[in-house]
């Protein structure tokens, strides 16, 4: 794959220019001969996927190939929808330890930042996007972090251009964190629920007393006007409330609150979700979680185990997987490990089909974007990956990655570094010509 030497700054600049130049999207692409997993339906042996003008136009066993189509032979390979990571700070965090590259949190007012739209800070030029896409991630959900109400999340595609170009749907959820009262300046779990309740009450009151508010004839509210406005779709049950929480009793508290206020609840992290899996299933509350963490890292996560995702699914809970491979500061760089998370989920009790669903259609459905991404159906975005084998296995490579019908083969920053150091003149790395 090393086709030229980079031994001067000039050559490096040329290489960068080559990366930035966009290949033209082929009008029609026909991926033939592979085992196709539409996810929305049963797998198809020797299937064909046609992408026309950026959208999937046909999927099936006996699909005619349009004349002039660019053919991709996927014989012996696996074809899936592009993977969707259900929760990440990719694109809003470049270097975790460099503060001015961190845009995932708002200060808010009193730890409430409902009006914070995290995608305003999205950097379409983040060098971490290409490595994720190279490994088959074609969409992800940017989730704000911190505070009690962190802000609003968005689902985006990994395409070049502007934030507007990338967005599939925004907002897709309101995000809250309720597991750690001390971190938001409160005294206990119960007080944290009081604080949330006050916000919900104020939102409902604000909704019906806007005129009085504008005339300054209402009591003081616990949140700013824009935060209350942003919370209205939540109390109307239109925008899901994605609550990051681990302890079983905290999940239960969130469920009680959601029931009381008719809120569409989703749980993320959910370490002890398996302990109340049947209740989550009965209430049709989905869980976004991983499969590579079993550390009882705090008193709120003593029940953390790798079987969580599989046990939840077995109980009938809709599960989407998060690809941070056990957590850590390198999360944005390693969202690309979503496939490893899925493989481990299988290893710890989830069926392979459910694991594939948990990294494709499940997050698309949960975030209201199943009509755009997450499966292989006519009309959906041409987000398709051709894998050399089982997508979850380490020896498998994402050989062709299409996003909205365009194949991406550009070199990542890591590729450029490797080329440079493998071809450094005068060292062991290559013989001096």
């Amino acid at each position, binding site marked *: 794959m090393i086709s030229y030497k980079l031994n001067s700054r000039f050559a490096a600049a040329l290489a960068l220019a080559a990366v930035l130049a966009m290949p033209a999207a082929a009008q029609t692409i026909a991926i033939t001969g592979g085992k196709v997993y539409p996810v929305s339906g049963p797998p198809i042996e020797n299937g064909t996927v046609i992408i026309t003008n950026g959208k999937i136009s046909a999927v099936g066993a006996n699909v005619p190939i349009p004349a002039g189509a660019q053919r991709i032979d996927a014989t012996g390979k696996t074809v899936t929808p592009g993977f969707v990571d259900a929760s990440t700070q990719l694109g809003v965090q470049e270097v975790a330890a460099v503060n001015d590259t961190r845009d995932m949190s708002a200060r808010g007012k009193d730890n409430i930042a409902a009006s914070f739209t995290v995608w305003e800070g999205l950097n379409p030029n983040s060098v971490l996007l290409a490595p994720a896409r190279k490994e088959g991630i074609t969409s992800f959900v940017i989730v704000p972090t911190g505070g009690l109400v962190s802000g609003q999340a968005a689902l985006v595609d990994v395409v070049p251009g502007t934030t507007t170009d990338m967005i599939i749907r925004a907002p897709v959820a309101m995000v809250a964190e309720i597991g750690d009262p001390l971190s938001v300046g409160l005294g206990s779990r119960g007080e944290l629920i009081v604080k949330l309740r006050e916000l919900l009450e104020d939102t409902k009151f604000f909704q019906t007393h806007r005129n009085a508010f504008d005339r300054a004839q209402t009591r003081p509210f616990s949140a700013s006007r824009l935060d209350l406005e942003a919370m209205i779709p939540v109390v109307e049950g239109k925008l899901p409330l994605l609550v990051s929480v681990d302890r079983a009793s905290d999940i239960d508290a969130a469920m009680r609150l959601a029931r009381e206020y008719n809120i569409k609840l989703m749980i993320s992290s959910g370490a002890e979700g398996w302990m109340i899996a049947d209740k989550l299933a009965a209430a049709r509350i989905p869980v976004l979680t991983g499969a590579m963490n*079993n550390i009882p890292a705090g008193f709120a996560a003593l029940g953390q185990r790798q079987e969580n995702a599989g046990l939840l699914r077995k109980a009938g809970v809709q599960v989407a997987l998060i690809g941070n491979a*056990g957590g*850590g500061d390198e999360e944005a760089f390693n969202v690309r490990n979503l496939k490893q998370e899925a493989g481990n989920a299988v290893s710890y009790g989830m069926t392979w089909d459910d694991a594939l669903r948990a990294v494709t259609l499940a997050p698309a459905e949960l975030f209201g974007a199943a009509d755009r991404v997450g499966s292989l159906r006519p009309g959906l975005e041409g987000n398709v990956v051709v894998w050399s084998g089982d997508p979850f296995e380490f020896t498998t490579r994402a050989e062709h990655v299409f996003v909205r019908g365009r194949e991406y083969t550009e070199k990542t920053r890591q590729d450029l570094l490797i080329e440079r150091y493998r071809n450094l003149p005068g060292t062991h790395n290559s013989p001096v010509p």
Partner: protein
Amino acid sequence: MPNADPFPSTYVAFPSRTTVIRNVNVLTAAGPMIRNGAILLRNGKIAAVGATVDAPADALVIDGAGKYVTPGIIDDHSHLGVYAAPGGNALSDGNEATSPSTPQVWAEHSVWPQDPQFPRNLAGGVTTLQVLPGSANLIGGRSVVLKVVPGRTVQEMKFPGAKYGLKMACGENPKRVYGQRGGPQTRMGNVAGYRAAWIRAVEYRRKWDKWNADHKGDPPARDLGNETLAEVLRGNILVHTHCYRADEMAQMIDISHEFGYKIRSFHHGVEAYKIGDLLAKEGIGASIWADWGSFKMEALDAVKANMALVDHDGARVIVHSDDPSGSQRLNQEAAKAMEAGAEIGLPVSEDQAIKWLTINPAWALGLDDKIGSLEAGKNADVVLWTGDPFSVYSKPEKVWIDGALLYDRTDPSEQWRTDFELGFVPFNRN
């Protein structure tokens, strides 16, 4: 001469029985894989490895059809016990961040044997750990090598005869921690700090070596920190240096030359691939991650092919974790690095990759004569995997340390639970 071993190991091997695993793929880390081979564990040692072995009449015979055996995994960068779960200030015992140079502290004095992360590590196939102080300090203190076994005391976990390590750290961490409280505030301040410490250590060693030779007058005053550093200079303690960037590794190498000690391994060297030749020439190991990077400036140039590139250059690759979660899946980390190598035309065989997980870290700890490969006479630290250890779907099924079965995924009664877990952790692992 002060007592060189004031906290001696009291480890005693757990009861074992003669065991044969046969019809199993054996990754020995000492030669090519033996397909459908066999291994005999007797009296805590590996008694035989080969296409077949003679099974004594009293042996427990395990059929390993479709399975693999490997040496026990060795993680040379762990903070288990010193940053124990469930965490919080009460269990934060890894950084004596009260002074930038603290060679006087010993990690073992912070280790909590009831850390619930230990049994999880064992279930990941890890049989030996180097527990290090953190990286806040230029010189962080002594490491300790532990067997991943239940113990009431840390002494019961200590690997008998293992050398101590010295933790050093370069780059961002020390200057971040001390920048606003007396320094070092810069990388040049870091280097001045190492050199000042070694100057004092050389002087201290000279005084003691002289007194040890002639016993004239009173012995010199003891100083715990300089005792440790003097032992490094005498070659009795191995240096493990946290260092990300290639240029800083080269500077740390020069400092080692200036004062006449050896660096055993660079830890977290995300830029090791830039100086693979230098590491090979100096005989320094690269204890590295498969894919961590970008989380701070000095980690920006991480590439997934790091291990394959460094290996190709002839330096010793060691897959390390620095993470209680990653440590349980070092096999998966190696597998990712193998694929990254294959992608750039540097395929890594399983025979080679298993060395990254076993014999190479054993060398980093100075224990490669006892552990790290499946060879007759070595300690019977063995993992039986449900399948190819480089597959995402494989897990350790059974783990032996010194021939004793200490973990069995198929038998909850053979799954160690720490005191802490009793009552608090609401399930049996399997």
